[in-house]
């Protein structure tokens, strides 16, 4: 393991520089970007990219053999399954079973904050 020791610290500082740029980009796009329906995919894409950088270089996955490289992607896969299946279930429920239900069951709240009906072309998470 000692052969790692004399490597330069500049590789790590370079990765850190990229992470800082991506963090500022996330903030600018999120507060000034007005990306609409693209804001969530873009923000998540940047977060996944930053995670890959941290995992590969700061957590040294890039130099790891075999089983240790597999655990993290597998947990991400199970996260995606849980998230995906839960969302598909929520998105395909009949309207009666939804929390925002029919009018009579709906408590008074401003129209601007009312959930768009399912199937609306503009309806996507957060938009």
């Amino acid at each position, binding site marked *: 393991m000692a052969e790692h020791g004399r490597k330069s610290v500049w590789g790590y500082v370079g990765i*850190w520089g990229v992470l*800082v740029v991506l963090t500022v980009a*996330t*903030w600018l796009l*999120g507060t000034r970007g007005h990306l609409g329906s693209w804001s969530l995919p873009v923000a998540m894409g940047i977060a996944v990219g930053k995670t890959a950088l941290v995992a590969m270089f700061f957590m040294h996955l890039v130099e790891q053999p075999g089983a240790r490289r597999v655990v993290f992607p*597998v947990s991400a896969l199970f996260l995606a399954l*849980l998230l995906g299946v839960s969302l598909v279930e929520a998105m395909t429920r009949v309207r009666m079973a939804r929390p925002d239900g029919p009018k009579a069951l709906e408590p008074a709240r401003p129209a601007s*904050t009312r*959930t768009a009906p399912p199937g609306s072309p503009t309806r996507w998470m957060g938009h």
Partner: protein
Amino acid sequence: MSTETTPWREYFGSRENQSQAAQLGMWIFLGSEVLLFANLFVGYAVYRYYYPEVFVEASHHLAAGWAAVQTLLLVTSSLCVALAVHYIRSGRAFWMGVALLAAMVLGLGFLVIKGWEYWKHWTEGALPGEYYRLAELPERGGSLFFTLYFLLTGLHAVHMLVGLSVLGWLVWGALVGRYTAEYHVPVEVGGLYWHLVDVFWLFIYPLLYLVE
């Protein structure tokens, strides 16, 4: 080093095996942590689908600029921890301790900002569940957003506290000369934990603070 205090265990067969077993164990633990946070992320996704407009408005109640500063603090602390591992791999225990102390200071800065945010939410009534009394936002959806906000950031803050304790313990180990270029398994696996806490924040930040 006498035989009683050696960190190496015969039953692993070799030092390389012991190091690999420790790291694999830590990765499996980190995988279970991902699944712990996954439940909150799934709850967030489902309720954001049900109340998209309320989530956008509620998100504007949070200080996105300060959260960006928090992200920068965590990312920089992650760099310090990576440098600490880099230093101890070549036996420079002093610089490892310095790097870990810097990471701890940055982590504490993060928690100070978080505490200030919590105090602000307390004063304006943006609290979880039945304690929610923010008039500007509808209770349905708004209360859920802040419940998820406190659960996600609270669970993250608890992990930060655990991570800070781990880093403090590692600094202590560096002071008493426990780690060398040959033996530094705790530094490697303790560092992994801190990086994972950083990774969780990379997702919590855009999901809670930058909803559009």
